[in-house]
């Protein structure tokens, strides 16, 4: 099952679903033939697409809308906030090529603030699947709810077989007493391999696939803070407003303190290149993630038991 097959299956079973795109058909190539007039391509008009989606939702529809993540979340931001957010309508936003997945496009196409923007809208739920398997396990619950939702779409095939999805619950892959890696989206796979490298160094390493960023799984964050000496947030997002912020807010709200080391993008856009080169340049290959974490963890006395 892939994204489009699931979308067709879901839409054919539920007349309420309308599939829309702002002329980004990568994920919906076969939808027009399958859905007829329940597919709407509004052209390169993210704002109009969102406004129309709100109107369709007023009529009892569940619009699932598609555009490149940066244009969806930024060009149409005020339409999402004002027409979907205020009215609390079940419009489902699918953001394509978020984060590092925009590889060689350059900063215009880099959605590295999308989580911050979308989680700032009251009522909006935010999801970031790790890979295609995770994506198709998460989408039925996301599309089936009455809440507005933003999905940071990643449909790349992964190697990991994920657990069943429960909204609001993270997927705890492993617990570790030294370090816990908290990650979402595309970087999950690299975090998984970084975990193996760290374990080869004799460390006890946990790994959490956040899956839902709003509402985030506070218990998973709290437990990792209580069980590990160091938390690592890993995200292809600015280090403001994303997972690092979510962890900080969670710890503060629960009067906990913990060492948290963020691996994110700080106060700039990332180097555009083919994805493998981006990861190398920005230091997000499994090896570089592990190296940065080891350097941090091995700082004299900082994380020792004593």
């Amino acid at each position, binding site marked *: 099952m892939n994204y489009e097959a699931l979308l067709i299956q879901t839409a054919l079973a539920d007349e309420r679903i309308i599939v829309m795109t702002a002329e980004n058909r990568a994920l919906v190539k076969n939808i027009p033939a399958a859905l007829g*007039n329940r597919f709407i391509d509004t*052209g390169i*008009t993210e704002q109009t697409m969102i406004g*129309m989606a*709100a*109107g369709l939702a007023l*009529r009892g529809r569940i619009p699932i809308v598609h555009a490149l993540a940066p244009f969806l979340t930024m060009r149409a931001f005020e339409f999402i906030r004002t027409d979907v957010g205020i009215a609390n309508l079940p419009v489902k936003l699918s953001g394509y090529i978020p984060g590092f997945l925009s590889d060689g496009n350059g900063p215009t196409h880099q959605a590295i603030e999308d989580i911050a923007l979308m989680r700032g809208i009251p009522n909006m739920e935010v999801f970031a699947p790790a890979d295609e398997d995770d994506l198709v396990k998460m989408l039925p619950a996301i599309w089936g709810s009455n809440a507005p939702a933003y999905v940071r779409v990643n449909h790349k095939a992964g190697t990991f077989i994920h657990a069943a999805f429960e909204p609001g619950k993270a997927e705890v892959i492993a617990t570790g007493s030294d370090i816990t890696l908290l990650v979402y989206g595309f970087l999950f796979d690299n975090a998984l391999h970084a975990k193996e490298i760290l374990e080869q160094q004799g460390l006890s390493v946990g790994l959490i696939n956040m899956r839902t960023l709003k509402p985030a799984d506070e218990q998973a964050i709290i437990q990792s803070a209580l069980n590990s000496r160091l938390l690592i947030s890993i995200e292809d997002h600015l280090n403001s407003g994303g997972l690092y912020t979510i962890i900080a807010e969670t710890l503060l709200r629960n009067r906990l303190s913990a060492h948290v080391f963020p691996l994110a993008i700080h106060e700039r856009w990332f180097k555009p290149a083919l994805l493998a080169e981006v990861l190398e340049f920005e230091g997000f290959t499994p090896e570089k993630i592990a190296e940065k974490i080891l350097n941090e963890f091995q700082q004299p006395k900082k994380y020792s038991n004593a």
Partner: protein
Amino acid sequence: MTNDKAAYLKSVALKVREHIIGLSVGGGCFIGASLSCVELMVYLYAEFLNIDKGDLSNPERDYLFLSKGHDVPALYGTLVETGFMPVEKLANHLRSNDSVYWHPNTNIPGVEFHSGSLGHLPSVASGVAYDCKIRNQKNRVVVITGDGELNEGSVWEALLVANAYQLNNLTLIVDRNQFQANIRTEDLIPLEPLADKFKAFGCRVTRIDGHDFVSIEKALSSIPDTNDKVNVIIADTIRGKGLPSIEARADRWFCAFTSDEAGQLSNELHTNKKTAVLESETLIVR
């Protein structure tokens, strides 16, 4: 239109303007833009829109979307005079115990969608119109926009898309009162020739006197069932219509008057003579 009907509609419009004057006292309101669209609003609710007050969520109803949301006093007044809203609610204007504030919101029964941020409802209405069409329902979807609001690119973007999908069940009425906030539209971002612009975007365009019920009726009743274009009615209006002291004045946009001034304005409304002495400051920014 019969003389009786015309007289009746005029009497309703007069009462709506009384309500608008009332709402300009205390916290104030966007009085000029409200007064310009009274006849449009009254005709729509009293004569045109097929909406059952007892069944506001009927999927076969007609829809009105007020995109230039700051003229909501005209809507409040019209909803009161057409029986959608109890008159007592107007006393709650700007009070925290109710939702009668400076922009429309769905806590007011009969309001289909909130507005305030300009340029949104042409696309929202297009979504509604699209759905009515693919369900083969005959609902008519009407959007009222301001003329200054036409500065927003999203209005034109929505028209491109609505015409691409031949949403002939959608009608956009432009309250062409010649002002945006404290400036004449033609002195800031000129809109004319406006009909040509809409035509170039593929719309079916008519231009009428927006204070004349006969013209309004003719324009709305002549919308064809069979065309493939979005309908646009450019309604030429006068900002502040009915109150000679504030008619067509750039500085009478958002106004908060004293009770005494409101009384004088009410007198103007009935005499149509410029007699009021207005000393309250006009707010340039709200």
